[in-house]
């Protein structure tokens, strides 16, 4: 009896660790609490927006109410404008981003594995990387007009150079002993590259893809803002021309949601592909 209570008492006190104050640096937060806080932040933002428009702080022509924006988006969705704009922009990103990524990976392998190509190519990539993408917009229009090709080109310029250098870094981080191991098996350089170096760098390469896909959204919007006759960016310039602020804001929100969605899809896919990295 006494023994039982003896062991039970300290157990109970052990089970209740002291809670750290919510705003202290060491505070841990459960998944549900995290989500709740995040949702509250969004709600706060929307409430502030309602308040600003409801109290007449901002004229509707500068800042329409959230309901107005939603209604406008609903109308654009119903008549198919939204879907076709999204479709156009997504198509441009997919093509531009895919081409850039494949080329960047090939470049990265070349400069990551061969010192000769590193010397020949990397300084040049570094140089171009610091040229602002926006400055290329007039040139690309001059070269290729205002069609899809020009959009691909802008996305390519905006992502390829950065990706190539980041991919190279991903590849360089593969432990030297992995490569040594492959060589002791008598594998050729090419085989070591394809069967050890690339698979081993893949999780990091995927992260790079995920980050650079985010940029691609910026570049496609930019290209469509400047010169296009379709796409999300184009619709925003139309909105400006006809003072349809609700449409402009609605489209910016759509861009935010699309960006967030692609990022989450990439994250989930990554989690699925690289399951082996996790314990248990």
């Amino acid at each position, binding site marked *: 009896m006494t023994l039982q209570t003896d062991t039970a008492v300290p157990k109970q006190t052990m089970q209740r660790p002291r809670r750290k104050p919510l705003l202290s640096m060491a505070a841990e937060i459960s998944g549900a609490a995290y989500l709740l806080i995040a949702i509250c932040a969004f709600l706060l933002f929307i409430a502030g927006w309602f308040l600003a428009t409801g109290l007449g702080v901002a004229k509707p022509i500068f800042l329409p109410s959230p309901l107005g924006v939603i209604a406008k988006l609903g109308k654009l969705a119903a008549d198919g404008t939204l879907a076709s704009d999204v479709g156009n922009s997504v198509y441009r990103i997919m093509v531009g981003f895919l081409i850039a990524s494949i080329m960047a990976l090939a470049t990265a392998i070349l400069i990551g594995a061969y010192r000769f190509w590193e010397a020949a190519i990397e300084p040049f990539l570094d140089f171009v990387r610091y040229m602002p993408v926006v400055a290329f917009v007039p040139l690309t229009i001059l070269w290729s007009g205002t069609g899809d090709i020009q959009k691909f080109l802008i996305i390519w310029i905006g992502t390829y150079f950065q990706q190539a250098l980041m991919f190279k870094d991903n590849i360089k981080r593969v*432990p030297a*002993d992995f490569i*040594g191991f492959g060589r*002791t*098996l008598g594998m050729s350089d090419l085989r070591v590259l394809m069967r050890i170096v690339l*698979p081993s760098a893949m999780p990091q390469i995927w992260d790079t893809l995920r980050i650079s896909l985010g940029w691609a959204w910026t570049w496609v919007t930019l290209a469509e803002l400047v010169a296009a006759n379709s796409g999300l960016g184009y619709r925003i310039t139309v909105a400006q021309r006809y003072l349809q602020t609700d449409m402009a804001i609605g489209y910016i929100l759509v861009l935010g949601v699309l960006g967030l969605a692609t990022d989450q899809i990439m994250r989930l896919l990554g989690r699925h592909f690289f399951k*082996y990295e996790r*314990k248990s």
Partner: protein
Amino acid sequence: MQAHPKLKISHLQKSFANGRSPVKVLDDINLEVGDNEFVSLVGASGCGKSTLLSIIAGLQDHEQGEMLVDGSPINGPGRDRGVVFQSYTLLPWLTALQNVEFALRETGHEAKDITEVARRHLDLVKLSRFADSFPSQLSGGMKQRVAIARALSYRPKMLLMDEPFGALDALTRGQMQELLMQIWQEHRLTVIFVTHDVEEAVYLSDRIFVMGLNPGRIKECIEVSSARPRPTGIQHDRETLELQARVLKSIREETRRVEFD
């Protein structure tokens, strides 16, 4: 020594370019290792043990000297010399079994036997139960056991090991040493084993090469004559302890010499 040593190194020299002036890391290394012999390389940190091992593996080149395996010169890595690295080198996207299969496939084993052979080797290191686990799910000792199974699976004549148990706790290390002993006796392997641990060197080796410092060279070769198989408690026998002290003293002399230079 035997008429035909498994490995013969003569007048080997190696420098690293350090800034502009090359620094000599290995100087006039001469050693012979017999067939089925177990030798250790010990020495102070930075004396060039890893460098020497990786030159023997063919992963690094050298400026001078000759290296013969079975009488023929080697250049570059080869399937006759398996390496177990100090860092964990299991490929993280492959399971334990697939890691062994990878080595077998790349060394040109017949496709139909690969899984069979791989399973047998996991069995050898007592890890059959973890065949389908990924490296991230294995402890350090288990990873090194898979690495040993992998290195043995394609039957290299020589096994080169660079502090393979350096990162393990004392208990696990002891178990790994016994396992290695057992495998070595069953497989007629020639092992070159780098270690910091004098007790480990004396327990495992037929001969111990003590390396000197600045530049690295073979300072002394100490023979361990205790009969095999060696019982587990032998580390604490008087004879063994004396031998350990002798090896330790030899290493210490060297660090002291360098300090007073």
